[in-house]
């Protein structure tokens, strides 16, 4: 059987990025993707930050299937009877190199896989890697059904449920508390309707995040992103608390769609897609070992994903880790040394990049974000304060500060707010 320089398992952002770099550098690369085509079964919210991809494929937005450029970010605190939002727009975000991109995975992954093929790698879609091959205690290739494919190095980019990282002895099972469940619908609407409803022109796009009643107070949040001719609407909820509360994410999504803030935005739309997927969310605390002899683990499979509550950055972390893994493989090839020691260079590269630095900066975020008050109390508090400020009830007005104080006192205590703020300062 032919021996490949590198085999990549998984055709998501991490796998495609690493295969692309290695193939461009002249390695003989084989990428396996179990979906009928890359992107076939993949999902995400869809707001993507571009610098890493721009480094990999300069000015990628000129050819990649970008739905819209994010020019408007909204953060909305959803309360029982209304909502309080922060609405940010930037004219600087509408010009190259842009900042955020709204993308749909079926198209985006397909495009990435095509770039990988053009770079000279073989993309074998519809093929699931079932097992790893071992030789002298180190990974020496992969097994697909009965077929064996030997290689110098295997890059594991098989996503959040990476069975292969477990087989390689790099990680143990993830716990429900370390996971978030994502559910999403793609809702089709005419382009003009979207632009009117979200106050957009041309390729401008909006990324809206929701915190509060949309998850019934469970840790997590909602999102709504504008595609060209559709909206991506979804929820992300911590799996452990979902299980404990016996709630189903799909039911909560249905409820979310009926919230008055949402129902008017999606009115008349047609749901064309429903999907669900897990997100690793405990950051460094759940990060597996990143390297062993003959194998590296990247992207979601390595839990390299940043969730600060305001933003979820997964795809750019996946791309950056895929690129670092490729770099490690190229250096190992140069030395012809694929031992665990040689491949430990990968972790060093990640430490030098934003990947492990950001995860370190925000290492307190996962624990902080489990605080239920963020989802149950504060959206209500904000709502009551602004309601009191804006409401005219025919009585003499109180000073704003007085209003705030009274509401806080009724709802909670100043001490717990100060303590939460203090924790927030350190965590995010």
């Amino acid at each position, binding site marked *: 059987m*032919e021996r490949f320089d590198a085999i990549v398992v998984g055709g998501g952002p991490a796998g495609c990025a690493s295969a692309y770099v290695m193939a461009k550098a002249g390695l003989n690369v*084989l990428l*396996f993707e179990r979906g009928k085509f890359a992107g076939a079964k993949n999902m995400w919210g869809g707001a993507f930050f571009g610098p890493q991809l721009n480094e990999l494929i300069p000015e990628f937005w000129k050819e990649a299937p970008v739905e819209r450029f994010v020019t408007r970010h909204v953060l909305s605190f959803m309360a029982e009877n209304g909502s309080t939002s922060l609405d940010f727009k930037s004219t600087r975000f509408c010009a190259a190199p842009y900042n955020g991109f709204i993308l749909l995975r079926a198209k985006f992954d397909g495009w990435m896989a095509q770039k990988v093929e053009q770079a000279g790698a*073989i993309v*074998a879609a519809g093929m699931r890697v079932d097992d790893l091959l071992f030789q002298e205690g180190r990974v020496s290739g992969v097994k697909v*059904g009965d077929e064996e494919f030997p290689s110098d190095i295997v890059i594991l980019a098989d996503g959040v449920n990476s069975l292969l990282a477990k087989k390689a002895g790099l990680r143990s099972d993830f716990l429900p508390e370390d996971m978030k469940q994502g559910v999403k619908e793609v809702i089709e609407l005419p382009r003009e309707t979207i632009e009117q409803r979200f106050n957009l022109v041309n390729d401008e796009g909006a990324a809206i995040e929701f915190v509060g009643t949309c998850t019934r107070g469970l840790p997590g949040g909602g999102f709504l992103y504008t595609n060209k001719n559709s909206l991506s609407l979804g929820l992300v909820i911590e799996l452990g608390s979902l299980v404990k509360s016996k709630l189903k994410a799909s039911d909560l999504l249905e409820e979310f769609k009926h919230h008055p803030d949402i129902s008017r935005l999606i009115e008349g739309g047609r749901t*064309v897609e429903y999907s669900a997927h897990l997100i690793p969310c405990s950051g460094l605390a759940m990060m597996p070992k990143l390297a062993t002899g003959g194998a590296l683990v990247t992207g979601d499979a390595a839990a390299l994903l940043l969730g600060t509550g305001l933003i979820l950055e997964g795809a750019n972390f996946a791309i950056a880790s895929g690129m670092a893994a490729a770099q490690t493989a190229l250096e190992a090839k140069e030395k012809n040394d694929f031992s665990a020691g040689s491949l430990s260079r990968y972790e060093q590269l990640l430490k030098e990049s934003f990947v492990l630095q950001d995860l370190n900066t925000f290492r307190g975020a996962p624990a902080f974000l489990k605080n239920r008050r963020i989802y149950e109390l504060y959206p209500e508090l904000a709502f009551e304060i602004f309601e009191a400020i804006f409401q005219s009830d025919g009585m003499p007005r109180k000073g704003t500060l007085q209003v705030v104080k009274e509401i806080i006192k009724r709802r909670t205590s100043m001490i717990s707010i100060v303590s939460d703020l203090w924790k927030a300062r350190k965590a995010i």
Partner: protein
Amino acid sequence: MNMIVCVKQVPDPEVPPAKFRIDAKTKQVMPPEGIPPVINPFDERALELALRLKDAYGGKITVLTMGSAKSESVVKRGISMGADDGFVLSDPSFQDSDSFGTAHILAAAIQKIGNYDLILCGRQASDWDEGVVGSIIAENLSLPFIALALAIEAADKALKVKRVTTDGYQVFSVPVPAMVTVCWDVGRPRLPSGSGVIMAARKKIPVWSAADIGVDAGQVGKGAARKEAAELSRREWARKCEIIQAETPDEAGTKLAEKLREVGAF
């Protein structure tokens, strides 16, 4: 046995119909963006039958598709399953050919390949479902034709072709070369192997133009079509629920039967 299998690239039939749009102007079905077209599932079965013959008797399988340069993917699919060779037929003049045009183009390429014992087609293409291209190829090449074959045995310069009828089977004996379309009941086509996919990925698939296969542009394409699509519409399914009120099951049954007769269900 030298075989040529005609395969068509079609929009993925596994995509739910609700996701397709109809373009009223071009009278085309528009698949959702980002979902790549696939090999016609009926043609995958024709390939499977060809592969079984190759397994049994040896020989060579050539895969042929008429479409755009992007149709290469269905030829590669055939090669990854075990076919040996393949060609894409693509030319601006081929566009919007009807079944006669399509068959004319395929027949010209088949003649260029030459030296064949058997040509196989699917029973129909899953996008337009006309099921006639195979028979027109047979006519163009003056070949014996058998539709809906289930199995084929080779017997000394002849083929024994078993075909399905409503209540049973028929076996025909035909001399080679012959043209045969293959029925669905052949069973699940084999999946490509990993090494097959690697081989297919590396294979260069030649694209033949009208000039390459000696097709006169006047005989194909929209201009030569013998019919014109006038309308394309989706079958609308309406759902209605009505609860029948009754005191006893007997009464409910009677009322239900009356209601069904009233709406013309029987």
